[in-house]
């Protein structure tokens, strides 16, 4: 059964169902949209259950040749990395839709766009054919653009266009890179071109070509991540987007960039990756510190969380290009964790924004007395985001820092300050919003409703679950990232350092790998 094709098709079918709802019955839109968005989640859970740890790296393989001459195929598969990206996507979309109860204006269009977006994002994570990947990667822009520009806040038109332009400039270079690569692969197969990712792995690309292709691909993904200095679109887009848009942007769309770096840059251009890894590592660390420093001074709570994303995504890039098994695993784990924690923070900010219509930190104060449940969940999410041990944020960042210490010790130490800064900006924001005198403007606000708590529960449970017991996730990530690392090691003379090989006694304690890390956290 072509389960992955079904998975991609389900949101699009759902969008069609929602679009065909009678205009006279607007009240049906929300429950139907929420209902159809559950279908991909069910399939994702099925994939999670059926994915075999001991099996091949790529599973549920599907391959239908679309055009032999151009070498285009509808080629889908799941490995340990895309598995969790798919699950994260399928989980966050129903949550984001559930959080969009207050969207009443053009609700149908809104839900249709959300579901189209979900289908496109799933396509990005599942496609192994580069032109299919690119098609999904690019089309994601359109529903997101419309979501921001139609339901965003004051400066939505500017933010939406900025988002599209930044990302599209990247995709322009990505397309050039893909075409060059496809023509080279075509020479190997004797066809005009070939867009098959697995075939591209096999061809020999000269180092100069690799360098330029790495730049072309890397630019597209770096803008999407966003990596410093390409991050300036992110605070605007996140801040102006409607709540669900921010959740999806931070939770899923940014991951398309880091996923692309892992899947394409590392695997396809190993020589260039090894050569350029220090530069990307430095950019990642600059992003960590810069994002955190900028977050501290934001007067707007949503912008604060947006800048914190720049910081967290910097960790992922650092871990990716540190090129050790631990750091890569940490990166993938952090991709999941960041989706949960930042998603939770954006949801919470959306809930309070619906009540007060202000995001300025100065407009709040003493909120904990007015909305105690809300304050509790917010504090929990802030802790998770800041990487408190026993919560999911800790595992990923810890593994990234430990893993990258082997290759980039200085960068790793500097990045460590990012963790401290994260505690500063989040807790300081908490203090200003939730403690102290109750600001008269916010007195009498209703605490979270049952629906709002229900939205937060799955995220809270997962954040704790992954923080305490990350092993099931790590078991699935590990073979996949190690196959990428192995590919880099066989193609170049790079050798990934391991803990056993260095004399640092302190580090040896963690040498067993993923299952250890949470213990370190608890202790």
């Amino acid at each position, binding site marked *: 059964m072509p389960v992955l094709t079904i998975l991609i098709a389900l949101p699009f079918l759902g969008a069609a169902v929602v679009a065909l709802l009678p205009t006279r019955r607007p009240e049906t839109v929300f429950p139907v949209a929420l209902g159809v968005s559950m279908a991909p989640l069910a399939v994702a859970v099925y994939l999670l259950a059926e994915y075999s740890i001991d099996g091949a790296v790529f599973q549920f393989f599907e391959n239908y040749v*679309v*055009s032999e001459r*151009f070498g285009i195929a509808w080629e889908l598969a799941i490995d340990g990395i895309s598995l969790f990206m798919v699950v994260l996507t399928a989980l966050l979309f129903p949550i984001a839709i559930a959080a969009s109860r207050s969207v009443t*204006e*053009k609700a149908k*269009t809104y839900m249709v766009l959300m579901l189209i977006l979900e289908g496109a994002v799933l396509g990005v994570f599942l496609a192994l054919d580069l*032109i299919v990947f*690119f*098609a*999904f990667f*690019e*089309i994601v*822009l*359109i529903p997101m*653009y*419309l979501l921001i*520009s*139609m339901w965003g806040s004051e400066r939505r*038109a500017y933010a*939406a*266009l900025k988002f*599209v*332009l930044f990302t*599209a*400039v990247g*995709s*322009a*270079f990505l*397309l*050039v890179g893909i*075409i*060059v690569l*496809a*023509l080279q692969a075509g020479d190997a197969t004797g066809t*005009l*071109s070939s867009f098959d990712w697995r075939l591209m792995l096999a061809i020999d690309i000269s180092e100069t070509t690799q360098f330029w292709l790495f730049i072309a691909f890397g630019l597209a993904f770096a803008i999407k991540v966003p990596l410093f200095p390409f991050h300036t679109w992110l605070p605007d887009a996140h801040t102006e987007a409607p709540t669900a848009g921010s959740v999806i942007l931070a939770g899923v769309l940014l991951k398309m960039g880091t996923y692309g770096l892992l899947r394409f840059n590392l695997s396809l251009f190993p020589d260039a990756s090894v050569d350029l890894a220090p530069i990307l590592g430095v950019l990642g660390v600059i992003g960590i510190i810069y994002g955190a420093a900028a977050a501290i001074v934001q007067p707007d709570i949503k912008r604060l969380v947006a800048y914190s994303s720049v910081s967290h995504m910097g960790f992922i890039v650092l871990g990716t290009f540190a090129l050790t098994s631990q750091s890569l695993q940490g990166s993938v784990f952090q991709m999941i964790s960041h989706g949960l924690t930042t998603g939770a923070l954006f949801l919470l900010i959306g809930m309070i924004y619906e009540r007060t219509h202000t995001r300025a930190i100065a407009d709040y104060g003493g909120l904990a007395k007015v909305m105690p449940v809300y304050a509790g969940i917010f504090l929990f999410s802030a802790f998770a985001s800041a990487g408190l041990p026993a919560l999911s944020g800790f595992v990923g960042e810890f593994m990234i820092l430990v893993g990258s210490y082997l290759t980039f010790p200085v960068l790793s130490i500097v990045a460590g300050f990012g963790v401290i800064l994260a505690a500063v900006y989040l807790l300081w924001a908490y203090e200003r919003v939730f403690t102290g005198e109750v600001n008269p403007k916010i007195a009498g606000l209703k605490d979270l409703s049952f629906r709002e708590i229900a939205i937060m529960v799955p995220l809270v449970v997962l954040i704790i679950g992954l923080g305490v017991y990350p092993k099931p996730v790590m078991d699935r990530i590990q073979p996949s990232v190690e196959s990428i690392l192995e590919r880099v090691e066989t193609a170049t003379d790079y050798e990934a350092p391991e803990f056993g090989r260095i004399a640092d006694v302190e580090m040896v304690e963690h040498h067993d790998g993923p299952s250890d890390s949470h213990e370190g956290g608890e202790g």
Partner: protein
Amino acid sequence: MQSAAWLPVAFEVTLLVGALAVLLVAVVAGRSRDVWGPVAGIAFAASALMGVWQWIDVETNGGGLFFSSDNFSIVRSPMVVMDSFSALAAVVLGAVGFVAFLSSWDLQAQLGKRAAEFSALMLLAVAGLHMMTATPNLVVIFIGLETASIAFYVLAGFTRKTEGSDESALKYFMLGSLASALFLYGVALTFAATGSLTLYGVNSIRNFFSGQLITEPGILLVGLALMLVGLMFKVSAAPFHQWAPDVYQGAPAGAVGVMAAGVKVAGFAALARIFLGGMISQIDAWAPILAVIAALSMVVGTVMALVQDDVKRMLAYSGVAHAGYILTTIVAGVPGLEAMWFYLATYAFMIVGAFAVVSAVNGPGSGAAPIASLKGLARRSPETAWLMAILMLGMSGMPFFAGFVGKVLAFVAVAEAGYLWLVIIGTLTTVIGLVFYLRIVATMFSRDGDATDESTESESLSVSLPTRFAIVIAAVVTFFFGVVPWPLLDVVRSALPF
């Protein structure tokens, strides 16, 4: 089965008979459109079917010639050829003509008694356009070009009492006839240098290149350059594009679609026949020149479209950019033909559909069409707004719409030919193009200005059935061939006669 001797000219004959029938019926049976309207529609539909018939015949019998002076051994120059190339052009032009005719339905209603002449001119124009594509003879290309151009000059000025229409017609006529003259002069000089008017075949320009010492290279070069300039003007490639925005803006919205789409299809088909058919051996000499024109068109068209406040002017400048993208396929040589046909066939429908929307929103005879007039279209007519969004995304080259497939095919072909810099310019201008296409989409769906604008904004917009039909066909073509391009690709791949 032996092919019918008249089949090579069946397309033109159908349309000419249709044009005459429309005029006659209008005179005999009164000027009510109920009588002659269907005749014109049937003529367009029948011409497209003739194209299909020609296509099938070429597939089975291998094509044919008309006015072939076989017994005249010195020249031996066929005047009309029927090959897969011309048959494909017939299908595309017939279908586009039919859709454009539907989209001009409202305009005809507004024209009243003069509408019969309008339809007859449209039929004549499309016949002339196809003549340009169905011949290896330079003079016949010129005759087709003039037949179409003169009809278009008149169409542009058909509502000359409204603002801009007479300016549009006059400008088009002055500059258009200059371009035609340049083309004709180029033909004459080419003949002077080579002694042949035929592009390929016995004693043709192609053979001249391979066999003879070129004694007058200067004359030949000037001739080629003049022909190129003439055609570049007609397809509005930069820097020969300045007429397009004014002409598009001033001409009645219901008539611009066929002008914009038809001339591009026929102009590029003729260009491909001249350069890939007659002068393929000199590709290293002319491809760099075309590459520069292509790059210039993409950049100038895109940048100028950014700053337009009028939909028609915006579409005119975006048409300049599209001319650039299509030119890259010719730069790529024969392997690019497939991309060229795919691009042309889909873009023609998009542009006709887009002008049909403009005609529906701003009125079919209107000149100016400010972008602001699209504000709130999503509320006034949600269906039209969604279809227009599809057309805009198609033009912008977004994946899952036909424009993307066309662009990728063009870029792959031209990258394979070694012009990577052209691909980079193409992808970057595509990104900038997103700004103005998305601006249209955002304007249609915008929530802003609900309260500020007058009551006319909130009235629901009723689109007449033929116009709606035209828009739907255009959007379906844009979306369908964006998702499933393979059927069309298989067809266009066999349209490579050279």
